[in-house]
């Protein structure tokens, strides 16, 4: 019996959300009196995988099959299922990412496991039950869910738990083969198109986000958002009306039918704060709202606010950040 964690890698690095998954999995293993093993997916690098020891991982399984570099639903599912059987994993932890959800849902059927996604805390295992807390109602509530059966799969919400770092500890990296065949790669992508990442900060993984709404008046003014984001090391985002009129690309749209994010800091510029927008950002730890309308509903959900013109306020903020650094 063990805990298996799925770590997503890109360009040789373990993603931040997967460090959280590794740390979470190691803590679950400690709760259950066992050890945590990781299985790497994506473009991994053995030396970086060994550092997962810092998150409490004992062993990392790595299949060097080159076609695993890109996300392939069937191949990833088989890889993880094979690792889970080998390690006799009772609990599998993955990120609540597009990859984690696609694979986790298939795995739950294949391994006859109960599945909880969008999980925000460590499980409670007292009283013979296995209970996890997860986000529901688009961030407007939480639910405690009892997972029945012998096997559980947990998809951990990004930035909801902190990854522990115990410097110097290393994990054993073991080569692993799931004996994947051509048939497992039948649904492989014919093409992968990555976004142009100005500044290199990916919105779903970002700790800080600067976001603009219709109050920005047009795409030509986005330089103000980008300048502040760059100074803060933040990603940029936008509201639905902004992506609907193509001022900004759809992958920047946060809200009920866009991306849901939970960064440490969310700065909303010229966004009134419709309930559908709040659904995408209301689990952010600190929310700052800048709006010239003091009646904007967003102020009710904010921790800090400035009633003022974004065109006047944003350059001041950028200057203040630069001064501080």
């Amino acid at each position: 019996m063990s805990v298996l964690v799925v770590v997503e890698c890109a360009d040789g690095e373990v993603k931040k959300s997967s460090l959280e998954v590794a740390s979470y999995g190691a803590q679950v293993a400690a709760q259950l009196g066992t050890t945590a093993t990781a299985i790497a997916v994506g473009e991994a690098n053995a030396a970086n995988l060994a550092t997962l020891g810092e998150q409490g991982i004992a062993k990392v399984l790595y299949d060097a099959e080159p076609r695993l570099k890109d996300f392939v639903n069937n191949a990833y599912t088989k890889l993880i299922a094979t690792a889970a059987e080998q390690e006799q994993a009772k609990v599998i932890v993955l990120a609540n990412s597009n990859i984690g959800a696609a694979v986790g849902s298939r795995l739950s059927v294949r391994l006859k496991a109960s599945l909880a996604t969008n999980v925000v805390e460590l499980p409670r295992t007292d009283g013979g039950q296995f209970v996890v807390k997860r986000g529901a109602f688009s961030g407007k509530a939480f639910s405690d869910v009892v997972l029945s059966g012998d096997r559980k799969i947990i998809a951990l919400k990004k930035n909801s738990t902190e990854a522990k770092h115990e410097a110097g500890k290393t994990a054993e990296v073991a080569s692993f083969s799931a004996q994947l065949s051509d048939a497992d790669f039948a649904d492989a992508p014919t093409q992968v198109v990555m976004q142009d990442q100005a500044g290199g900060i990916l919105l779903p993984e970002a700790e800080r986000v600067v976001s603009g709404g219709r109050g920005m008046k047009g795409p030509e003014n986005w330089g103000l958002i980008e300048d502040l984001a760059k100074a803060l090391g933040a990603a940029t985002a936008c509201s639905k009306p902004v992506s609907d009129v193509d001022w900004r690309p759809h992958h920047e749209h946060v809200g009920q039918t866009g991306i849901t994010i939970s960064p440490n800091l969310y700065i909303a510029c010229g966004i009134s704060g419709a309930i559908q927008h709040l659904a995408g950002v209301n689990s952010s730890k600190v929310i700052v709202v800048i709006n010239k309308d003091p009646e904007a509903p967003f102020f009710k959900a904010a921790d800090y606010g400035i009633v003022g013109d974004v065109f006047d306020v944003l350059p001041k903020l950028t200057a203040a950040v630069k001064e501080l650094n």
Partner: protein
Amino acid sequence: MKFLVCISNVPDTTTKITFTPDNKEFNKAGVQFVINPWDEYALTRAIELKEAAGSGSVTVLNVGEADTEPNIRKALAIGADDAIRVNAAPQDAYFVAEQIAAVAKEGAYDVILMGKESIDYNGFQVHGMVGEMLGIPTVAPAMKLDLSGNTATLEREIEGGKEIVTVNTPFVASCQQPMCEPRIPNMRGIMTARTKPLKVVPPVGEPARTTVAEYALPPKKQGVKLIDAANAGDLIKLLRNEAKVI
């Protein structure tokens, strides 16, 4: 091409969420229910593809009790041809997936579409479970879907980009923007929806694997701290020294 579009019945997006006094159930009193907004992308795209092909059918499927029928009729008014309701409260994602898989198998559907997730449970699970139960590919979440004969080309969103994926029917896709502009019913649609077939079938399969023990609301915000626009730079100091987020 036979399309099966799965819709769920969810509280309207502007609903204030409350629970029953024991916190075990969502309080439905006075709440307006709508078709899950993500599912509207699946429904509209299926209708568009059927219209473009000039043949085929769109069946809408809901797992729910009789009170979901107004929204099933709304889906028929938007342009689905017929509907199936599995007569059971949706217990969890696994239970719902079992119902969808059984209906899909029985009706030999070619394309099974649904929204990325429901805005109440936020599971993002059903698509993969159905695909696995039927042994067919799943593409989730899909931002674009085109069909040419039995071959579909989809864009799947991944963190930081997208994958172009080609699959043959049958397959499952969970849909999201910007796949299409969701349609709203017109008067003719509303009139014809009344007489379109709506079949009610009993649930099948194993019981749910997960149960909700309790719901809770997030802790209340302390209230906003306002900073004078003239001294906007003070905000940055607060974010560093007080909130400690930069």
